[in-house]
């Protein structure tokens, strides 16, 4: 299995999608009440794509993000991530898949406050078993690539929201994942920092990364090249008109 780092497959080969969902459902049970958060979602995302998933709250957006991020497993249906069927995997195997294949960017940044920027960035590499020296080097490179070379030894509390989110992006990049999954990455930022982060996303896209951005904000979604709408647990392929309509 090759990493789709540059996103441009050699000519003549069939492009294997990074994400393939087939009739995925997710049903939550609270006592005797069953709630279907996803009701048969099928979609495919190719390497190098920049996809936004947009939907109002309660649409199943978060559930989809959890399933795409291997943080949760579908009730039924099939999910292949970079050709690997993650259905029926153990918790340990899922942790390894997340570590290897997915970089997360969260709305809350989710940096560990007791660690410096570079220590936060190297964290996924610690779990991947990368030796110390190499970890630090790669963390520094990732921080430099998000424009924080001068802030590597700062703790999250000493950084602005925009800078913290950039540290989080560096952390998502550092493992060279197949997929970068951003969940409302601009939700906690002022408009200047938000634009800053979206520009960073564009740069990642230009560098050939596969990006999935989950948001309720049509303006944020419009930064992507492909928009998927989600409503009542179903995903629809959308054009800009749909985006405009839910605005």
């Amino acid at each position, binding site marked *: 299995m090759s990493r789709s780092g540059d996103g441009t497959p050699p000519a003549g080969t069939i492009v294997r999608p990074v994400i393939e969902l087939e009739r995925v459902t997710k049903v939550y049970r609270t006592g005797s009440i069953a709630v279907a958060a996803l009701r048969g979602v099928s979609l495919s995302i190719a390497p190098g794509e920049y996809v936004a998933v947009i939907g109002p709250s309660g649409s199943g957006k978060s559930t989809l993000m959890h399933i795409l991020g291997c943080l949760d497993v579908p009730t039924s249906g099939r999910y292949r991530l970079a050709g690997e069927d993650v259905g029926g995997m153990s918790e340990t195997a899922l*942790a390894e898949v997340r570590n290897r294949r997915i970089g997360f960017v969260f709305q809350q940044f989710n940096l*560990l406050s007791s660690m410096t920027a570079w220590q936060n960035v190297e964290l*996924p590499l610690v*779990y991947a078993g990368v030796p110390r020296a190499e970890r630090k080097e790669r963390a520094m490179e990732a921080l430099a690539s998000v424009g924080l070379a001068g802030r590597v030894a700062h703790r999250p509390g000493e950084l602005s929201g925009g800078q913290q989110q950039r540290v989080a992006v560096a952390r998502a990049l550092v493992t060279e994942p197949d997929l970068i999954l951003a969940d409302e990455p601009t939700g906690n930022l002022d408009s200047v920092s938000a634009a800053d982060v979206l520009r960073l996303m564009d740069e990642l896209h230009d560098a050939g990364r596969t990006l999935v951005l989950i948001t309720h904000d049509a303006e944020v979604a419009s930064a992507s090249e492909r928009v998927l709408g989600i409503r009542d647990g179903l995903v629809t392929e959308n054009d800009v008109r749909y985006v405009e309509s839910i605005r």
Partner: protein
Amino acid sequence: MSWLETFRTGVAGVLSHRLRSGLTVLGILIGIAAVILTVGLGEGAQGQVASEINALGSNVLTVTPGSSTSSTGVREALGTASTLTMSDVAALSSPVDAPDIKAVAPITSSAETLTAGSSTWTTSVQGTTPSWLTVRGRSLAQGRFIGTQDVADHGAVAVLGATTASELFRGIDPVGQTVDVNGTPLTVVGVLTSTGSSTSSSSTDQDDLVVIPISTGAERIFGGTTRNSVSSIAVQARSSGDLTAAYQETDHLLLQLHGITNPTDADFTITSEQSLISTATSVDHTLTILLSGVAAISLLVGGIGVMNIMLVSVTERIREIGLRKALGATPGVIRRQFLVEASVLGLMGGALGALLGVVGAAFLPGAVGDPITISPAAMAGALVVALVIGIAFGVYPASRAAHLAPIDALRTE
């Protein structure tokens, strides 16, 4: 993730919550220090009792007349029957018949009133032979002990115990003075070194006695009894390992000399100091167990403290756990991280508790007056116990952390 990395993460986790970690460590620390001190106190008391009993003379058997009905091994009424004689002493002294016996000291004793100038003092007067000194394991502070010649000559000499000497001759050098016993003037030739056992209530004062030649006692002091009879015979084995052999030789020889075929009809009783030691130490042992029980409970409370804090820690760090899981930490890694944190807390508590125990052992005896013996084994044991407590009480919180669903953990605001 390697164990080293897990260890680093765990230690960092402990250090990032200093106050909370410190309070948890305090709980373990107090428990461990309490255990070390109570065990040390118990061992110290046992050592004290053992040394007091050892002061009576090591490797010594005591033969007394008449069969004892006491099951505790305590000597009963001396001289209730006069079945032991000087010929028994002579036989036991034979290196051929009793090769494992090093020395034998016959003892006749009686409570007498002593007069020296205007002072009078009633104490135990013991008639014996020169071997008494080694058999009893005593030494002289001043002068000399009674000699073979004194025994042969029925010499009018006496050696005083430290207490007796100070009671009779306050401020005067007793050696060379005369002490009057039952109207017989005796010259003091020596004073025994104090055993320091006078503080013990469990044994009679070993420093309050007068030692005279056995012949002098029989001839001049103790009226009435047959001259040949003795109150008891102290038998010293060559070493503590030979005590059993010495016991058998004594038993065999005396039965033979007294013409007794059935051992249950024996007209004498042999007791060993060993039985006294074991009786005395078993009492202290019980006390130690009791105190250790109390200390163990405090340790248990400390352990529950670790569990409590670890559970709080898991709840408080639910986002951190979720994030670590999202970034690829497997349940096993998370479990190990929390186990390491719990064991670091336990170990720190153990180490600091051991330190406090040692400091306490150095200063407490001055305050409570009892010796405290800290053994390396107790220290090592305390550390192991602290570690085990950290791990044992960390298992449940760690497995709670390990099985948190990452989405639930991340969702928490």
